[in-house]
């Protein structure tokens, strides 16, 4: 087999395509990582347990993958969707019935969103079980909690966009809680005493009205497609950067066992 490989690699055809050979050395393996803009997020060398699915569960990486899937499918969906109450639902019907691969793209977006909520929770569970929030990673755990909240908010704002019964009532139930915010909601403790009314409290700001209506749709759309993803991207950058700065993936070094 090896002889055959050598023979092929020394043939004129092979050389004309690849021009020079690739030596499998540690130096070249390192260059694969540092010379590649996408791969250079990684360190060049890692402890073996970092590749062990039984240790990492792979949930953090899968969360990032799902975020990328959601970005790509989300951009495609934006070509077919107008965030105005007159059009939104009709655009959804059009997408589900007449657009080529429309249902596939929308289904992938929705199921990846649900899956991402699950993988974020499981990633957090793993990080807790291995005590990986302990020094020096305390701050990055906090960044992760913010990312969990952003994931939930992204999912929640996206829930409204189909503009069907499921969407507006789920969002109505969710945002009704804001009425009761202490001090800032018109039904919350000490809210009325501070002059909160249904048309000026924190829920009004969230919805752009006294109930879930067309301004809410636009607000949630901009939040879902632009504002929240940008914030999440910033926090993700910090999260990944801090993993490297805090010494890479956690492992039994320094304190504890060893």
């Amino acid at each position: 087999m090896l002889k055959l490989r050598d023979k092929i690699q020394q043939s004129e055809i092979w050389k004309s395509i690849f021009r020079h050979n690739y030596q499998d050395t540690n130096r070249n393996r390192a260059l694969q990582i540092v010379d590649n803009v996408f791969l250079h997020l990684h360190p060049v060398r890692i402890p073996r347990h970092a590749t062990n699915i039984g240790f990492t569960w792979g949930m953090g990486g899968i969360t990032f993958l799902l975020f990328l899937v959601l970005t790509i499918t989300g951009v495609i969906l934006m070509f077919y969707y107008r965030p105005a109450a007159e059009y939104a639902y009709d655009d959804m019907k059009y997408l589900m019935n007449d657009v080529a691969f429309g249902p596939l793209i929308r289904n992938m977006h929705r199921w990846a969103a649900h899956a991402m909520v699950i993988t974020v929770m499981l990633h957090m569970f793993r990080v807790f079980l291995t005590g990986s929030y302990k020094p020096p990673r305390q701050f990055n755990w906090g960044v992760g909690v913010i990312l969990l909240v952003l994931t939930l908010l992204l999912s929640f704002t996206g829930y409204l966009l189909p503009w069907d019964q499921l969407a507006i009532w789920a969002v109505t139930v969710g945002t009704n809680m804001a009425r009761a915010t202490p001090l800032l909601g018109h039904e919350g403790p000490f809210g009325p005493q501070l002059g909160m009314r249904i048309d000026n409290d924190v829920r009004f700001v969230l919805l752009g009205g006294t109930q879930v209506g067309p301004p809410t749709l636009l607000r949630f759309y901009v939040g879902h497609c632009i504002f929240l993803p940008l914030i999440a991207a910033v926090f993700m950058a910090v999260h990944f950067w801090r993993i490297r700065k805090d010494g890479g993936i956690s492992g039994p070094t320094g304190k504890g066992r060893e």
Partner: protein
Amino acid sequence: MQNIWLLVSKPDNIPIVGLLFLVILYTWWGFHRGLKNDRQDLSEEARLSEKIQVWPHLVRVEFLATLFVMVILVFWSFLIDAPLEEAANPTLTPNPSKAPWYFLGLQEMLVYFDPWIAGVVLPTLIIVGLIAIPYIDVNEKGNGYYTYRERKWALWIYCLGFIVLWVSLIVLGTFWRGPGWYFFFPWENWDTHRVVALTNVDLSELFGIPTKNPDTSLNPVAFIFGAVVVLGYFSLGLIYWLRKKNSEILKKLGPVRYSVTAMLFLCMMSLPIKMVLRIALNVKYVWVTPWFNI
């Protein structure tokens, strides 16, 4: 029996079935590995700590994981359509109106607490409490490997919060709550006309102290009773401190860390306590004041 299949096979509920399965699997796996590490002198992770090249070892794993996830996602998306119901109609409220599944734990809390606690204060405390974990956990053991013996308390409290008070409430809200947010068994048909008598009483009324006077003004005795119960509950943290302040763990925590930990823990435990009070004794409020009710 039809109903259970309708619930489980609802497209938006499939992730919850998946979540339940994965949480059980990973809880078993995490504890299994922790106990295994505890029995050995050298943890699995320490055994696998020699350095290897990311290319190809890690990149290969990432590539295979990506393929695996994408295959599942594409099949899932081909087989099951995302739901699209009738057009939004603000004048037609569906019964039950449910929040997205990941917020059903919060919606379930609304049964036991007023919205300002269930919808605002407790969610805020969940976020703050999670961020605070690394700063209040002073146990420096168990950093970077699975273990049970070295972190028993931390693991039990986290599992109580995550599995019992988060995941199981989501499951409860999805499969056991029907019209009117009444309790239905998953296999029971949803009767939209079910009438349930309102027999809830306030805690003081269990002790023969009416919350309201006959002229519907607030009974000051009930007010003081409620205040004593609620403030007494939260002073449990102080009492424990006074009794155990010379123990090793409390000395290590110090007063600030201890008070934050005790506050967060008591707030977390208030949910199961209130659930038991409501479900077993029909208690509506523990403390009624003119401004808020707890």
